[in-house]
């Protein structure tokens, strides 16, 4: 039974890592992977969604900017939700497992990337040798190893770790569990601050205040606030375009109609 569960979570992890690279689909699809995993584990799909929502909330706003991966949310999410499903644990437990696992899993990615970097020289060599089949072979070997590593990681984590985690969960005092729930509720603040830092410009302050006030006082849902955001964005865009056009026509006038200005002053 545990072997089967480990197999499923391992496959789910490999799948999540596949779509995180392939077409960058995972950004929007974590819930689909959780649902598939729950179906194959024979657990309740809605339970997976509730645990998944708690985990994704804790990861909210964590994004891969450029090449830097702050937390491996794919591995953390799959293992956190996976353990919670297998052990029928509370959503807070899923978060408690997902966050530290996501931070540790970055190490695995860094090691893989080191290996890929070492292989760049070999790719260069194959190009000098004009050997396309060897070039393609190494490319696919890297992808297979990448997939196997993440499969094995989740597979052995479940196989070896489940009993230990079960004991850990059963021994958690109640105050610790409620502390965990509170911390999980506070965590999205970090992700949002990270996003804010990425796009921040003091010019955007009014929009930030508007967004906050729309939610805090008018209690609007996210969808409605997004629509207001689009309205603000469009207003900004059109004003910018006008300024841009004015600048351009201004430049043309000063260069071509220098004489007019003289005439004007002469009058």
């Amino acid at each position, binding site marked *: 039974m545990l072997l089967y569960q480990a197999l499923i979570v391992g496959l789910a992890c490999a799948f999540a890592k596949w779509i*995180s690279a*392939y*077409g*960058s689909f995972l*950004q*929007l699809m974590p*819930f689909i992977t959780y*649902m598939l995993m729950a179906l194959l584990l024979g657990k309740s799909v*809605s339970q997976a*969604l*509730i645990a*998944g*929502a708690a985990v994704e*909330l804790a990861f*909210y*706003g*964590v*994004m891969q*900017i*450029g090449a830097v991966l702050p937390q491996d949310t794919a591995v953390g999410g799959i293992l956190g939700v996976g353990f919670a499903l297998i052990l029928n644990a509370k959503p807070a437990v899923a978060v408690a497992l997902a*966050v530290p696992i996501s*931070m540790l899993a970055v190490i695995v990615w860094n090691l893989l*990337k080191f290996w*890929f*970097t070492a292989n*760049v020289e070999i790719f*260069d060599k194959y*190009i000098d040798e004009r050997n396309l089949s060897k*070039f393609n072979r190494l490319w696919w070997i890297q992808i297979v190893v990448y997939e196997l590593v993440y499969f094995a990681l989740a597979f052995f984590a479940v196989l070896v770790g489940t009993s230990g985690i079960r004991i850990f969960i059963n021994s958690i005092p109640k*105050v610790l569990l*409620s*502390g*965990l*729930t*509170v911390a999980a*509720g506070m*965590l999205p603040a*970090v992700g*949002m*601050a990270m*996003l804010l*830092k*990425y796009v*921040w410009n003091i010019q*955007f302050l009014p*929009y*930030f205040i508007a967004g*906050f*006030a729309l*939610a*805090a006082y008018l209690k*609007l*849902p*996210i*969808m409605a*606030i*997004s629509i207001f*955001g689009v309205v603000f964005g469009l207003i900004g865009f059109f004003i*910018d375009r006008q300024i*841009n056009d004015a600048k351009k026509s201004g430049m043309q006038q000063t260069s071509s109609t220098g004489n007019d200005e003289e005439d004007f002053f002469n009058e």
Partner: protein
Amino acid sequence: MSNLKLTPAEKKRTKRLFWRNMFLGFNMSYTRQQGVAWDWIHAPIYREIYKDDDQFWEAMKRNMEFYNTTPNMNGIASGLAVSMEEENARAPKGTFDTAGISGMKIGLMGPLAGIGDTFFSGVWALIIMGIAISFAREGNLVVAVLPLIALIPNILVRWYGQKYSYKLGSQYISKAVKSGVMEMFTKATSIVGVTVVGGMISTLVKVPLVFKAKINGNTLNLQKIFDQILPTMLPLLLALGCFYFLRKNTSPVKVLLCVVALGFILTFLGITGAA
């Protein structure tokens, strides 16, 4: 617009390029980032373009250079690069300056990543995930369909970006970059993002106060007092605090750990609690 119609051969080529471009996120390295992936993606296309073996391997060597952008946006650079390679193949040997291709790639990857990261990874993922989380919390199965709809912009930008840049060529793209339209678009997208983040802080961050004290028979309810000053004031202060430390270049991991510790400490002191 008739010049935008693809001939059957071109259609086959752009389709192939579209599917192979899905692999740009694989096998990144520290030294070249997506350089190797670029070469693997384009190898069969270059093979078709260059009948001459020397030219083919020259193109492969040339394109192994450092490259890094948002994968969703790469169709634009990719379509443009292929049209330039085709031009190179048609031109008599030595008349086409291949440095222009590298220049285009290096010049384009920054602005494309600027828009792509802001739009796809930032604003779009933020809004969609925000809605998805609010459904998933109730165990609502709508979450299964939502991401598939949300993928549409990703696919459209990949396909049409590649097609238009392939057919329209470099003048149009460089004109768009120079005209400042791209910066204006990034800025507009950022405005949407900032507005939504402002709203999300109020709706999604939770600092539930349970502390109540009796003073002269009156109960002092901390949560009520804060709500009277400003609803969801504590989530706002928490997010702004995180923002402050991140701006001072404290590492995100440290900030995260501090927030977790804060949650535990406040709960142990009986100030916050699971409602």
